[in-house]
Every structure is written in structure tokens, then in C-alpha cells.
């Protein structure tokens, strides 16, 4: 018998069609590059040192040249942490409280020790603080000389924006992928059960769905965030996954209703296949393209949603970087004219989302050529 001959299945044929589509292949390459970068970043090959303060605060991109107006930091590259406090704020002539402030300053100036004396109370954390400072001195690399410019600039703390964008991309893509997977799995299981069994089961899921969707989505997200209490990547994944299943549910349910009456399912019934077998072994492969397309649409949506969540302050915790948290920081920076962090995060996200969307469209056409 000839086991060598195997015929192209649905996926092989879809791949063949996809290969003929230039836009699809370019967008696939872009998406692939992002994923490779994500893997490299997760395994520590790139962007692992993003937290190092390698440059002066708000070091501009190299092509703009170093800041020459002095700014907050000295051009010598040495950070003067005390500079800010020691230099007195220039007097604002329009301030109605100007006189009071001048008076207060005069008092403090006459008795500078009054502000730091702690009213005779010893700081209970002082020992811990000294210990911490000592250990930080040991572990954290001390960068003797901080760069005045970086290829794409630095943020407030002097982190390299490129490294930060890569690391942030890792968080965003992982959140997008895992949350989309969770949402599609939930939607598929609910949709399959609801559509296949119909009747009371279907009614139950539909009621659930209706109630769920009647709540404004942002309120829903905030509610889940409030219930889960803690910040973290897992929390965001759960928030997005638990609120995002409604779209796939509706579509998968419709597909199951359509397919359960098909003759091949009746034929499976006739040979004695169980409900479970009919649902997932017979019907699911026939509608898997719907789930896949839903998944890729959701990935795009969730990457954007993570940004909004982080922007609202429900996003990733301090110490983790994502494109959303970068954009969140950028709102303050933009006032100071430091546009590079915003540009880097927004551009990376825009390129990935556009490429992913184009790829999704092409994928749908390839899997369902009749639509075209």
C-alpha cells in the first residue's frame, strides 16, 4: 500500500493560496519579525538590560544631537540629584501667594534645620534604607559615564527607548495572544455547547450573553479589574479574556447551529458517535477557521486594549513595561517636548497591528475562498 501519497488538506490548500498573496506574505514577515523579537526578548537575548540607566534623563535620539541648552541635567553627564532642590524656583510674579511663599522661604532660610529635624522622631525605616542602599550599590551596576544621546533617545530615568520598546512589546504581545486564546477557547466552548444542544441550554447561554453585553465594556473591564484586586500581566489577561469571549461565542454558536443539521453530522449520529465526538471531532474542524480568524482579530484588539488599560492605570504593575505603560508615561513627557518614547511605542504598535490585521484579512480569504 502506498502511504507516501497524502493529499493536501484544508490548511495546505489555504497556505498555497496565502503564498500567492503578496500583501499577506509581507504582513506575515512583519508579524513574524515581531514574534521573533518577542521570543528573543523573553529568552533574554535582547532588551534584558532595559532597566539599566544607560543615559542621562531624556537623552534625545542621536540624530537630533545632545541637548545643548543644559536642561535639567548637566552636560557633563553626571547626574546632580540635589541640583533640583538646591536651585530655588524662580519667583513667579503672577502668583497671588508670591508674598507668602517669599516669607516662608525666609523663615526656612533662617532655620534650615527645622525642616529635617523630624520633630525628635527617629525614622523607623532608616536602618532598612541604609541596608537597601548598600545592597543596591552592590547589585546594580553603577554606570560611571551616562550617554548624552541614544539611537532613539532615553526616558526620564535614562532607560534606552529601543530596549524598552522591545521589552514592552513582549508584554503587549503576550497579553494579546494569551488573552485572545482564552477568549476564543471560552467563546468556542460556550458557543459549541449552546449551538449544538439548543433549547434550554442555548437559552441559558443567550441570557448570560445578553446580560454580559448589556454592560458597557469599559465598565465591565473596570469591574473585573476591581474584583481581581491585584495588578499584573495575568490580571490583564484574565480581564480581557473574561470580557472578550462574547464575539467568538456568537459566531461559533451560529456555525454550530448551521452545521449540526448537516448530513455529515447526521451520518456521524447514525454510526453512533457521541455528542462530544460530534461537537469537537466532527464539527469543530469544519469551523476552526472561524475561531482562528476571531483569534487574530482579538489579538489586534487586545494589544490595543492593553494600551488603554495601562493608560487608565489598570494595566501592568510598576516594574513591568508594556507599550501601554510607555504611552502612559508619554503624556507627561510630551509637555516637555520629549516625543521619542511616545513615537517608538506608537509606531511599533501601529506597525504590528496593521500587519496583523492585513494578515488576518488575507488568512480569512485563504481559508474561505468563496467569500471573495
Amino acid at each position, binding site marked *: 500500500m502506498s502511504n507516501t501519497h497524502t493529499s493536501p488538506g484544508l490548511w495546505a490548500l489555504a497556505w498555497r493560496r496565502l503564498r*500567492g498573496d503578496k500583501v499577506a506574505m509581507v504582513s506575515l514577515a512583519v508579524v513574524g519579525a515581531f514574534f521573533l523579537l518577542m521570543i528573543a526578548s523573553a529568552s533574554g537575548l535582547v532588551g534584558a538590560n532595559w532597566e539599566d540607566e544607560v543615559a542621562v534623563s531624556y537623552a534625545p535620539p542621536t540624530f537630533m544631537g545632545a541637548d545643548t541648552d543644559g536642561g535639567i541635567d548637566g552636560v557633563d553627564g553626571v547626574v546632580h540629584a540635589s541640583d533640583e532642590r538646591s536651585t530655588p524656583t524662580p519667583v513667579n510674579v503672577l502668583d497671588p501667594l508670591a508674598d507668602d511663599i517669599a516669607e516662608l522661604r525666609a523663615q526656612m532660610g533662617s532655620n534650615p534645620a527645622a525642616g529635617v529635624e523630624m520633630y525628635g522622631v527617629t525614622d523607623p525605616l532608616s536602618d532598612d534604607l541604609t541596608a537597601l542602599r548598600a545592597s543596591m550599590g552592590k547589585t546594580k551596576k553603577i554606570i560611571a559615564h551616562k550617554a548624552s544621546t541614544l539611537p532613539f533617545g532615553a526616558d526620564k530615568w535614562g532607560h534606552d527607548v529601543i530596549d524598552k520598546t522591545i521589552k514592552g512589546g513582549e508584554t503587549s504581545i503576550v497579553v494579546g495572544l494569551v488573552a485572545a486564546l482564552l477568549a476564543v477557547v471560552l467563546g468556542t466552548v460556550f458557543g459549541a455547547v449552546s449551538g449544538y444542544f439548543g433549547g434550554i441550554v442555548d437559552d441559558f447561554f443567550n441570557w448570560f450573553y445578553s446580560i454580559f453585553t448589556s454592560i458597557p465594556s469599559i465598565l465591565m473591564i473596570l469591574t473585573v479589574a476591581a474584583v481581581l484586586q491585584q495588578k499584573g500581566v495575568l490580571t490583564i489577561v484574565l480581564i480581557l479574556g473574561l470580557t472578550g469571549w462574547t464575539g467568538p461565542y456568537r459566531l461559533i454558536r451560529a456555525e454550530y447551529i448551521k452545521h449540526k443539521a448537516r448530513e455529515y453530522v447526521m451520518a456521524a449520529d*447514525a454510526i453512533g458517535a457521541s455528542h462530544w465526538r460530534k461537537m469537537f471531532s466532527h464539527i469543530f474542524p469544519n469551523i476552526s477557521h472561524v475561531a482562528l480568524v476571531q483569534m487574530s482579530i482579538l489579538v489586534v484588539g487586545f494589544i490595543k486594549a492593553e494600551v488603554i488599560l495601562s493608560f487608565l492605570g489598570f494595566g501592568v504593575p510598576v516594574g513591568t513595561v508594556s507599550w501601554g505603560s510607555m504611552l502612559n508615561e508619554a503624556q507627561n513627557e510630551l509637555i516637555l517636548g520629549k516625543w521619542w518614547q511616545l513615537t517608538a511605542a506608537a509606531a511599533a504598535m501601529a506597525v504590528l497591528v496593521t500587519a496583523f490585521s492585513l494578515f488576518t484579512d488575507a488568512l480569512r480569504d485563504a481559508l474561505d475562498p468563496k467569500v471573495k
Partner: protein
Amino acid sequence: MDQNNLLEVRDLRVIFRLDKKNTFEAVKGISFDVPRNSTVALVGESGSGKSVSSLAVMGLLPPDNTIIDPASSIHFGGRNLLELSIAERRTMCGKDISMIFQEPMSSLNPVFTVGFQIAEVLRQHMGMNRKQARARTLELLEEVGIPDPATKIDAYPSQMSGGQQQRVMIAMAIACEPKLLIADEPTTALDVTIQKQIMDLIAALQKKHQMSVLFITHDLGLVGEIADHVIVMRHGEVRETGEVRQVFEAAKDTYTQALLHCRPSLDERPWRLPVIADYMEGKAGPGVEIAQRTRGYTPGDEPVLVVKNLSKSFYLRDGWFGKREFQAVKDVSFTLPRGKTLGVVGESGSGKTTVGLTLLRLHQATGGTAMFHGKDLISMPNKEYLPYKRRIQIIFQNPYASLNPRFTVGQILLEPMRIHNIGANDKERIAKAYWLLDKVGLPEQAFHRYPHEFSGGQRQRIAIARCLTMQPEILVCDESVSALDVSVQAQVLNLLQDLQDEFGLSYIFISHDLSVVKYIADQVMVMHKGQVVEMADSDELYRNPVHPYTQTLLSAIPRGVQL
């Protein structure tokens, strides 16, 4: 161009682009004429290029992937249609040439009334105003025999039967008094009695309006009743053209002879049906004697299945809380002996399919008993029924729908054996699957392929092989050969017959096709509106129909040319 000819097609060559590299030549340079005031039939099996040719005349082929050879010409009334601009062609189609399609249900727009849809044609092509168009629409509906046109003009397509919908399509097609009417399998989707009415209507309209009709069909039997000329096509080529009488009486081409004889006839019952290959190789044909088979229940038959008063009701929602009962099957009783075939005949909606599905418990019966080896299949609990499932199996009508497109043939065949624990291990099961593929006449390589790579007849063989994996005793064939081409139909019928002879299977053969049932069935049960109106041995029933409904059915069978 000959003045007598309305349409002259010369060297028509249509090529489809499949992808960047591959092309498929659907029509290979055919030529034919449609004379004025006559009916020409274009006959062929699926893939013969008959529909493609007619669509080329109408200019309805998808422009993206169709290449029509520049040397081709289609002259209509002195002008070459292929050289006209799109706008000129569009005014010509619909006005001078119009078309009726196979599926009236999908050709009519469900959200507009039929009156609106007919009037639209009139306003577009004849420049009528709203009032004139409505008056003319009423006349047209009257002409095509719609009862009570004054109310039906405002009906939606879904409120009409299939036959009425096809009449509306015809009314739309003749609205502008076209010179040429192209009818593409206009009766294939309809019941046999309705088919006869539509054929009569087309013939009458052709005479009345002095138009030409290009009638496309796969059924040679129909052709004999309506056509003046016949063109037989196969694989994109014309095999034979001629006067209808000459083609039927003395076909020159072997393929035409084969087509004429592959269809089971009402007058004889050969041991095996001749297939096209037999004719092409000269194994069958005029002068070759074929052994005949006799059929009928005999007193010594051992009954396998005894069905008594089987009933099935569906409940339709009526208003907010109300339910309306619809009795699909009422008190059906019959006996099926081992190794015999019970034919179930009826029109759509007669409940014949429901009988089959309730016996397999794919529908839950409302009442009655079905005794199988002393056990009642209808009333036993689901769990107890499972071992019986494999002993009574079904082959569905549409082989394109009944096989899971994501399973390979191997998976399709192994799955039932795994579910029912047939065979000791997978190795044994695979061996059995190969043996069955061979039995149903498929090559070994089929095991690794997907259903979409097979033709309709081959898929039906896969479906049969899947049933055989479970070694059933009863096989319900629900319109199992209706979707197949005439020649393939003969092959599958032969296969079913061989399997019955070899394994002693009992068949319940459900079909709307009376000649096929006559050929294969020992006893025939005629159903009408859910009830059995007549049941008798097949020879007896066809010779001597008692019930008026049976008589109507039998008289509606197209018999070809009455010699």
C-alpha cells in the same frame, strides 16, 4: 448566417483559469444552431459543458477567470454577441434572450413580492410605467397558470410552492417576449408531477409566442417529450446532433446509445444495468441479450424488520403559546424481509425521508413499533439502542454533504469501527478498510485522500463503504442515487445490487424516481401526505396501479419519444 437560424454558435471554446498556471478547457470548440421557432435540447452529464455553453450565450460567465477563444462566434439575429459591448449585450439579454435557472427558490429575491420582481423587468426593458407593468404582470401570471393571480401578485416567493416559483420565473423570462428562451435544467429541482406541468407549460408557450427554446438537461427521457433537435455533449465536445426521433431511434454515437440505456427503463429489468463503459467497449448495445431479474416478496421470506403504525409529528409554534401539530408520518406499516428491497416512493413532503430517519432514531418517533429481532427499536432507551445502531445504517442523498470534508477517507472508514469496537486492533481495522475500498471499487490510494478529491459517484461509494464497516443488516438508502449522473447512477445501483446478492442485505430504498425504484425494489410503498396510499410488489404496482395518486405519479414519468 442561415436565415432560418436564430442562434448560430461556431467553434465556441471556453477556458477557465484555475490559478496562475493551470487552465481547464470546459468547452472545446463546439458548434450548433438553434433554428427559429423550435426547441433544441442540449443534453449531457455534469461536466459536459452544457451549462457553460448556455452561460456563454447569455454572457454570464465570470469575467475574471474565463477566457473565450477569439475565434469563437455566437451569432444571434445576425450579430456576433461576443463582439458587442457590455451595455449592448445587457439590453439584448433579458429582452431578446432570457433564461430560466434550475433553482427557483434561489433565483427569486425573497424580500420582494413576485409582482414587483416581474414588473421590474417590464419597467426596465419595455419602458412601462408602474400601472401598465402591474396590468401586464397580472396577464403574465395568468398565462403561466398561477391560480388566483390577483392575490398571488402580492405574495412573496416563500409563500409559493416550488412549482409556482418556477412559473413565476418563466413569467419573468417571457415578460419581454424574447426570441430565445434558455432553460437550464428548469425541472430538476421539482417533483415528477410538477415537472410534467412545467414541461407542458414551456411547450405551450413556445408554440404560442413562436420563440425558440434552448433546453438544457441531463435527462434524455425529458428531451423526447419536448425537443425538436437534440445535441448530446460530453467532456466539452458535441457527440451527436440530430432530429429527436432519429437520435432516439437510431443513435449513431455509442455514448448517446449508452445514455439512452443506462437509465433503468420501466419495461425491463436487466440482471445488471449496463454502464457507459459497456457500450463504449461493445459489451452492451443493440443485439446484445442481457439476463433479466425477477423481483417480488415470496412467501418463504424471513422478515427482519416489522413496522407497525409508525407515526411522527412535528410541532410548529403557533402564536405566543400555541402549538400546531403537523403529522409528517401517519400509521405507516410494512415488513422488510432479509435480502429484499422495499421501495418507498412519494413526492417531496410525503414523509418518505422521515420514515427512514425515525427508523434510525435520528428523529424520535411519536408512535408505533418497529420490531427488529424481537426488540422494538422505537421504544427502547438510548443506551440499549447503541448496539443496534450499527445493524441499521443509512446512505444519504447528497454525497457532497454526508462526508465530513475534514476527514480523510481512512478516518471516515475507521471511525465507526473504533466506536463499535469492530476488529481487535487498528491494524485489523485498517486491513478491513482496504478490503472494503476494494469491494466498493475504489483504489487503495483513496485511503489517504479527502472526500473533495472524489466525484459524486465515488463519494457515494465511500458512504456505502462506511456503512459496510459496521456489517449492517438493514441499509436505508435515502435518495442515494438521485444526485448522481445517469451513468454513475447505474454503477452505484449495480454496486448496491451486488452487495445485496453477496451479503444478503435488506434495503429500504427511498426515492422520488419511479423508474429507479421499479428497477431495484421488490415491493413498492407509495406515500402521499404522510400516509401509505398503496403497497404492492413492484411489477404488480407498475402494471396495475389502483390508487388514483399512484396513477398520476406513473403517468407523469417522462418516457422519451413515444414510438
